[in-house]
C-alpha cells in the first residue's frame, strides 16, 4: 500500500534511475518540503543538476523545458498549483503544442508538466483551478488526470516516457489516498479509461477528486439496492470513448461529474459524445455536475456550494431512476476539514 503522493515519488525516482535524461525543476522543487514530498530524495540521489529549484519565472521556465526537450532531455516542470500554469500558457499553447506539427514532424517535445489542484482551507479562486478542460481544448497537448495511487504511478511513468508534451494534473486531496501500487515500474496507456466500480443501474463518469465522491455516493445507493458503475476517463486527451460508451450502453443512464467548471468544459464534451453515441440506449438525458460558474470563494459555506459532491450525485441518480429522495441526514460524507488543519 502506498499513498498517491508516494506513488508519484516512486515513479519519479524509478524513471530518473532508468533514464538519465530525465530532469525535474520548478519553483521550490528542491526545498525542504519537496513539493508535498512528491519530490523527496531526488536531489540526494540524482544531484542538483537533475533536480533544481528555479526563479519565479513560470513563462521562461516552460520555454526552458521546451528547449531542453528539443535538445535531447526529458524535463519535468513542476507547478504547485494549476493556477500558476496560466503564466505559461503562451509556451504551452503556442509553442509546445505546435512545435512538432509546425516542423512537419522534425521535432518532438518530450515534456511533462506536473501540476496540482488545491482545494479547501481558503485556497479560493487563485489556488483551486483544475483547467483540464482548458488544456484538453488545445491540439498537441496530452492531459492526464490520475485518481488512484495505482494510476498516479503508472500514468506518471507513461507521461515521462511519452515523446510529447503531457500535462499531469494531480489533486492535493488525493495525495493521502492509499492503494495497492506494485513496487516495480509499470505503465498505463494514456487514453485508457478505468472502470472503478462495476454496476448495472447507472453510469457515473467522474474525473479526479469526483471519483472519491462518486464512490461515496455509490456506497450509500448500494444500501438501497442501486448499483452504480463508475468510469474514470483518466485522461482528457487522448480520450477512451469506447469504454465510456460501452458502460452507458449497458446501464442506459449517465451522469457526467467533471472536476472542473461545467460551462464549455470537458464534461460538456463527454455529455455530447455520450448523448450522440448512446442515443438509442439512453433512458434519460445525460446529467452533468461540475463547479458553479463563479470564481471559487474562500469561506467554507460558499465553497461547499461551489463544489459538486456525493449528495448531489445521489439526488441526480434518484431523479433518473424516479425514486423518492432518501434520508441522508445520518450519512457520513467526505469532509476533508475533519482531518486537515492547513495551511497547505
Amino acid at each position, binding site marked *: 500500500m502506498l499513498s498517491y503522493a508516494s506513488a508519484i515519488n516512486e515513479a519519479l525516482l524509478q524513471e530518473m534511475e532508468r533514464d538519465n535524461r530525465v530532469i525535474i525543476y520548478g519553483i521550490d522543487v528542491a526545498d525542504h518540503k519537496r513539493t508535498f514530498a512528491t519530490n523527496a530524495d531526488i536531489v540526494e540521489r540524482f544531484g542538483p543538476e537533475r533536480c533544481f529549484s528555479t526563479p519565479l519565472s513560470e513563462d521562461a*521556465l516552460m520555454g526552458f523545458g521546451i*528547449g*531542453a526537450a528539443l*535538445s535531447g532531455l526529458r524535463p519535468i516542470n513542476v507547478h504547485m498549483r494549476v493556477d500558476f500554469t496560466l503564466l505559461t500558457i503562451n509556451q504551452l499553447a503556442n509553442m509546445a503544442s505546435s512545435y512538432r506539427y*509546425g*516542423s512537419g514532424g522534425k521535432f*518532438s517535445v518530450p515534456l511533462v508538466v506536473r501540476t496540482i489542484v488545491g482545494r479547501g482551507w481558503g485556497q479560493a479562486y487563485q489556488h483551486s483551478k483544475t483547467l483540464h478542460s482548458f488544456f484538453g481544448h488545445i491540439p498537441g497537448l496530452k492531459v492526464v488526470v490520475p485518481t488512484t495511487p495505482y494510476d498516479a504511478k503508472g500514468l506518471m511513468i507513461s507521461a515521462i516516457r511519452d515523446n510529447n508534451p503531457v500535462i499531469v494534473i494531480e489533486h492535493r486531496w488525493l495525495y493521502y489516498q492509499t492503494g495497492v501500487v506494485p513496487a516495480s515500474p509499470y505503465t498505463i496507456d494514456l487514453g485508457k479509461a478505468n472502470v472503478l466500480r462495476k454496476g448495472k443501474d447507472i453510469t457515473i463518469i467522474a474525473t479526479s477528486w469526483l471519483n472519491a465522491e462518486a464512490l461515496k455516493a455509490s456506497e450509500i445507493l448500494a444500501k438501497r439496492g442501486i448499483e452504480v458503475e463508475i468510469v474514470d476517463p483518466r485522461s482528457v486527451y487522448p480520450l477512451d470513448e469506447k469504454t465510456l460508451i460501452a458502460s452507458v450502453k449497458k446501464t442506459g443512464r449517465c451522469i457526467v461529474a467533471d472536476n472542473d467548471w461545467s460551462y464549455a468544459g470537458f464534461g460538456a464534451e463527454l455529455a455530447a459524445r455520450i448523448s450522440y453515441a448512446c442515443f438509442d440506449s439512453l433512458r434519460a438525458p445525460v446529467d452533468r455536475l461540475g463547479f458553479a460558474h463563479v470564481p471559487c470563494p474562500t469561506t467554507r459555506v460558499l465553497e461547499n456550494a461551489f463544489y459538486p459532491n456525493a449528495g448531489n450525485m445521489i439526488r441526480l441518480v434518484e431523479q433518473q431512476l424516479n425514486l423518492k429522495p432518501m434520508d441522508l441526514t445520518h450519512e457520513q460524507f467526505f469532509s476533508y476539514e475533519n482531518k486537515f488543519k492547513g495551511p497547505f
Partner: protein
Amino acid sequence: MLIGVIFMRKKLNIELYKKLFLIRSAETAIIAHYQEDEMKTPMHMSMGGEAISVGVCFALGDRGAVYGTYRSHALYLSMTGETDAFFGELYGRATGVARGKAGSMHLSAPEHGFMGASAIVGSTIPLAVGSAFASRMLKTKKIAAVFFGDGAVDEGVFWESLNLACVMRLPVVFVYEDNGLAVHATDSERHGYQSIGRIVGNFDCKVFASRTTDVEKIYELSRRAITHAERKQMPVFLHFQYYRYLEHVGVNEDFGAGYRDRAEFLVWRRKDPVLVQRRKLISLGISEAVLMGMEKRIDRQVSSSIVRAQKAPFPKVGELTNHIFSE
C-alpha cells in the same frame, strides 16, 4: 604566413558574401513573385539586416543551435544555404521545410542547427536557455543562440530568460537585432530607459554592441563574444543595430506611412551590408568578373528553386492530421 592570413581572410569574406548575396537574391525574388499571390504567407523581410544572421552564424559554425523569429529568412538561409525547401514552404508545397504547415513565419531546419522560430514575439528566447542547459548536461558542444528584435525586449520573458541564463551560468548567445521598431512603434515610445546595454550589463552577462553593417566585423565580434561565453560559462548579449528596409509585414517600402523618414533609409542604404561586402571583395582583389559569376550562380540557384516550388505538389489532405504527436 602573411600570405596565408590574407588568403584565409579572402576566403572567409567570399563565403560571407555568398551568404549575404543568397539572402538578398532570395528576397528580391520573393518581391518579384509575391504579387502573383502564390506565396500565401505573411512575409516579414530580412532586407537590411542580413549581415547579423550571416556574421553570427558563421561565428557559430556547425556548433550552432539557433532560434529565430517570424523574420527569419536571413537566419534560415544563413544556417542552411539551401533554397528548395525554403521556397517549397513559402509556396505551401509538400516539398517545403514543414510540408507547408509552417510558412514564412515558422521556419526550422534542425538538421542544420536551426531549432525553430515563432510568430509570438520573444517566445523562442527561453527555449535557447533550455538548449544551452541540455548542451551542458549532454555534453553535445552545441552553442545555443537566439535572435530577437526590438519588440522582444519589451516582453517579460526576455528578462526572465536573461536572468535564468545568468543565475544558471549558461553560455547563451542573445542576439538583439535592433531596428528601432516594433511593428511601427519606435523605441522611444516603448522604452522607459536610456540604454539597454547598461541594464543588461548589470546582469552577469557581457554586452557586445555595434552599429556596423560590415559582416566581417559582426563575425569577428560574435566570435569574441562566443569565446567569452564559453570560457566564462556565462551568457553574452550581442546588440546589433540595423535598418529595416521594408514594411513590417509585406514586401514593399512604407515610407509614405508617416512613421519614419525615407532620408533615414538613404543614410543606411549607403552602408548596405551586401554592397559593403562587395566593395570589400573588390578591394581584396577579387575581380568584377569573378563576382558576377558567383552572383549569377546564386541567382540561378534561387530561380530554379522557385520553378521547382511552383511545380511541386501541394500536401495531400491527409497531411492535416499528421505530426501532431510523436510515437
